């Protein structure tokens, strides 16, 4: 029973990934579609990041701090890992400060 659920999950997830890859082999000629596909990653990542990033931590303030740090470092073209870890660090520090303030 649960195995069938897992089989369905895995099967559908694989098919939506595999079919386009297996079917389209030629380079697409249409400039519209080419341009469209060029923009897809940015549109996908933009919509996945916002607003989700603001609710990804335990407080809006720490999320804002993390987002600000990430944007700043990304703007300076730091590596993916640097940006990601610095952002985590900013969240950690902010939440630590918030908690310390709360204590008094």
């Amino acid at each position: 029973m649960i195995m069938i659920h897992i089989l369905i999950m895995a099967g559908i997830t694989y098919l939506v990934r595999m079919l386009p890859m297996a079917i389209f082999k030629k380079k697409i000629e249409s400039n519209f579609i080419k341009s469209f596909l060029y923009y897809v990653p940015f549109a996908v990542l933009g919509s996945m990041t916002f607003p989700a990033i603001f609710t990804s931590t335990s407080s809006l303030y720490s999320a804002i701090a993390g987002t600000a740090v990430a944007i700043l470092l990304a703007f300076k073209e730091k590596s993916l890992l640097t940006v990601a870890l610095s952002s985590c660090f900013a969240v950690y520090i902010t939440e630590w400060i918030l908690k310390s303030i709360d204590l008094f």
Partner: protein
Amino acid sequence: METAKSSNNFFAGIKDGIPIGLGYLSVSFTFGIMAVNSGLSVWIAVLISMTNLTSAGQFAGIGLISAGASYIEMALAQFVINLRYSLMSLSLTQKTDNSFNILQRLILSFGITDEVFAVASGKAHDISTKYMYGLITVPYLGWAAGTLFGAIAGSILPDSVSSAMNIAIYGMFLAIIIPPAKKARPVLWVTILSVVISLLLHYTPYLNKLSEGFVIIICALTASGFGALFFPVKEATK
């Protein structure tokens, strides 16, 4: 092909996959905890991660399983939530070099995740199968290992640390989109449009009932269509 060899081999892929894998640890850790909390065994949780390799789909999946959903419901939910991968997969077909035969496509398409796609499509040159294998390896292991640790440990990490780690994946996304958006105005506009639509769909009553997968599809179609219409790429992917 004028691809730079050294940045297109297995080890270049491994290297690019490390930040993804690290980011996955915290997400799959959370998944492991949630899966066990919803009544699944540790091994079922790991099995799901090793066969699905997707965040939103898996989280929705364990929710549906514990809610006793029908198979049809499960299939439809997975289809909608994961349909975005079709767009990514299609987009990647334009960036693959001639080492991609049908067998490689059948194998490698399994590993297309949001982050793998983002990194692969961000490369300046066409990607090789060797690079893709490398790129997928660490994230796949990270995803499985994180699930295992999460499921076993329940909650070993203090909340303050896991809360901080949750933002890692988004920080990475920003690091992927901001540098190109800085250099090319059209990319900036497309990204901003997508974000605005996403915010509208999340905060407008009724519309905010749309599933996460649908929201991403709508944003991607609209913003990329807008970009293609108003800022056609002169000499698109070479």
